[in-house]
């Protein structure tokens, strides 16, 4: 497969989206240096943008995604508004979840990013449920769930894979194998080199892909998504990629070999796509700079929006537990 097989316009769009994710998170890095600007620990997708964009571009807007603690890329790729994400990450009332979630579990139902969980391994069983509803209603929509190589060790992932193929549910399992789970490298937490090898144990297709090549990710996703949509049941993609920053901005990766970081930095998915578009003459340097500036402006606007937004009222914390107008006051007071 050659990335040239992917339409030039689409590649440009994917480039823009990857740059948006990168710059959005670079803004978070910047803001995390300032006191009391962001709330909690920031888990960044820096280096993994091609997985989010390549997979999501293979979906229709009605398809559902289920995300995890490393969600910014997934959500932006699915079309979430950076303003409301930024405000959420700042804990503001205007945030996509009114400040109740913060960075770790943002749900954006508007774009069918219905559930994000920071319980590692929590996503796959949720995705089974979403895909069941899609199948039950006779829709052709599918559900994609992103999870990490670390998550693959959780029992819930196993249960979800077995159940989804048993019932031929339209779930695409996307394992972002970024070589680390916290401070544990793959070989320290996983008994097997390729998590994709597990697909056979559930009777479903499973394939590896270079997760830093957005065109390859997209092409494989297209194929796998078609299978899910056509009633062939679930499939597993393992995207080999790399987490370029620590697990949270306080983490300076003391446990990582600097050479490993350098090697993967050469494989940067954005740089690769950029070079390949330039060398094919699809875009000019000037056009790329324009994209960069436009994206920066969006990110700055988002940061400004978040910064200027008010915090929610303390007692509004009591809202949004229950659907009806019923607070636990009735229960507990």
């Amino acid at each position, binding site marked *: 497969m050659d990335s040239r097989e992917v339409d030039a316009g689409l590649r440009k769009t994917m480039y823009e989206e990857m740059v948006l994710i990168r710059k959005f998170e670079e803004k978070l890095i910047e803001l995390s240096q300032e006191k009391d600007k962001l709330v909690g620990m920031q888990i960044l997708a820096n280096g993994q943008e091609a997985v989010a964009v390549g997979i999501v571009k293979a979906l229709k807007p009605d398809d*559902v995604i*289920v995300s995890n603690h490393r969600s910014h890329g997934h959500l932006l790729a699915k079309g979430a508004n950076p303003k409301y994400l930024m405000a959420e990450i700042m804990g503001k009332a205007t*945030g*996509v*979840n*009114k*400040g*109740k*979630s913060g960075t770790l*579990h*943002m*749900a954006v*139902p508007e774009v069918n990013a*219905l*559930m*994000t*969980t920071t*319980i590692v391994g*929590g996503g*796959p*069983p*949720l*995705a*089974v*449920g*979403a*895909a*069941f*509803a*899609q199948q*039950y*209603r006779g829709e052709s929509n599918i*559900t994609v769930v992103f999870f990490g190589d670390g998550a693959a060790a959780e*029992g*819930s992932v196993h*249960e*979800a894979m*077995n*159940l989804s193929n*048993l*019932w031929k549910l339209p779930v695409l399992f996307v394992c972002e194998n970024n070589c680390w789970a916290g401070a544990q490298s793959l070989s320290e937490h996983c008994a097997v080199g390729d998590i994709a090898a597990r697909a056979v144990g559930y009777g479903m297709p499973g394939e590896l892909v270079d997760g830093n090549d957005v065109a390859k990710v997209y092409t494989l996703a297209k194929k796998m998504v078609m299978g899910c949509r056509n009633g062939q049941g679930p499939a597993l993609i393992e995207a080999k990629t790399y987490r370029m920053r620590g697990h949270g901005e306080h983490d300076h990766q003391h446990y990582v070999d600097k050479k490993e970081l350098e090697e993967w930095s050469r494989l940067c998915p954005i740089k690769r796509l950029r070079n390949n578009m330039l060398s094919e003459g699809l875009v000019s340097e000037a056009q790329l700079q324009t994209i960069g500036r436009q994206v920066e402006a969006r990110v700055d606007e988002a940061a400004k929006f978040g910064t200027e937004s008010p915090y929610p009222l303390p007692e509004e914390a009591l*809202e*949004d*537990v*229950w*659907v*009806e107008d*019923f607070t*636990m006051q*009735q*229960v507990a007071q």
Partner: protein
Amino acid sequence: MAVLSFGQALRDALDVAMSEDERVFIAGEGVGVSIHYDPNLPTHGLLEKYGPKRVKDTPVSEAAIAGLAVGASTLGLRPVVEIMFFPFITLATDMLVNHAGKLRYLSGGKSSFPLTVRVKAGVNFAAGCQHSHNLEAWLAHSPGLKVVFPSTPAEAKGLLLSAIFDPNPVVVVEEMLLYWMQGEVPDGDYRIPIGKARVVIPGKDCTIVSYGGAVYTALEAAKTLSGEGISLEVVDLRSLVPLDRRCLLDSVSRTGRLVVLHDATKFGGFGAEISAIVAEEAFDMLKAPVKRVAAPDIPVPVSPPQEIFYKPSSEMIIEAVRSTVGKA
């Protein structure tokens, strides 16, 4: 109004919900085809009636069963999933507590999770502590989950139907040994509001608060004590979350005395919450300390004399009431 067993009443609720609303489906281990062939079981015959699309036998995967409910509910279905026995709910608590109960909150109120979990409870069916372990106190301490625990066939039907159509996650605890108990059950879409307790028998001297099968132990005690001229008011909570504080406090204000009863272990059990509420809010009405009658803080033993010993008896209530009313 038909006379149905408790299990048939539950089945009737499922039947009504499924025939009324295409969004309702049921799933769990053996909910379609069961090793127990008994029309008194809540899912008996539903596979035959509604087919395998809506009656789903699952693998032995409690976390996935709960996840199925969470995910399907937020896309608009009305899942009713079964956890076979109460101790197995431990395997689903991440999905129920960290997901069903919290994801709406985390969405800032954008999403909802209208799912129902049926769980079978009972401390005395000779299967031992890995099958018998009432954990309603855990669920009641988990924000975002409603918990009901019916004691009669009519309540079972009415509460299960309300649970299925409640827009929030609801856990329905089914006392297995009641499955065969008969009672009058209203026809059709009969619902009992979740959060309303019921005064089973009115009385003057002491209130007994309970739920589930323990209510019958309380009634037994009430009968014996009435022979001694002590009049018990028996309150069936029916719903633990939300709790009908009004009914509870009103009853205590009438009787001035309270004994709380449940089949779960005592330490940290749901009875503590009842006792604490009353001690906090009805202190001045209390003529005597609130007593709790509950199981000892041990796993459920299998040996018959020990299993009987484990389960709170009407004698224990009688003793507690006597000491409360000062006639010990």
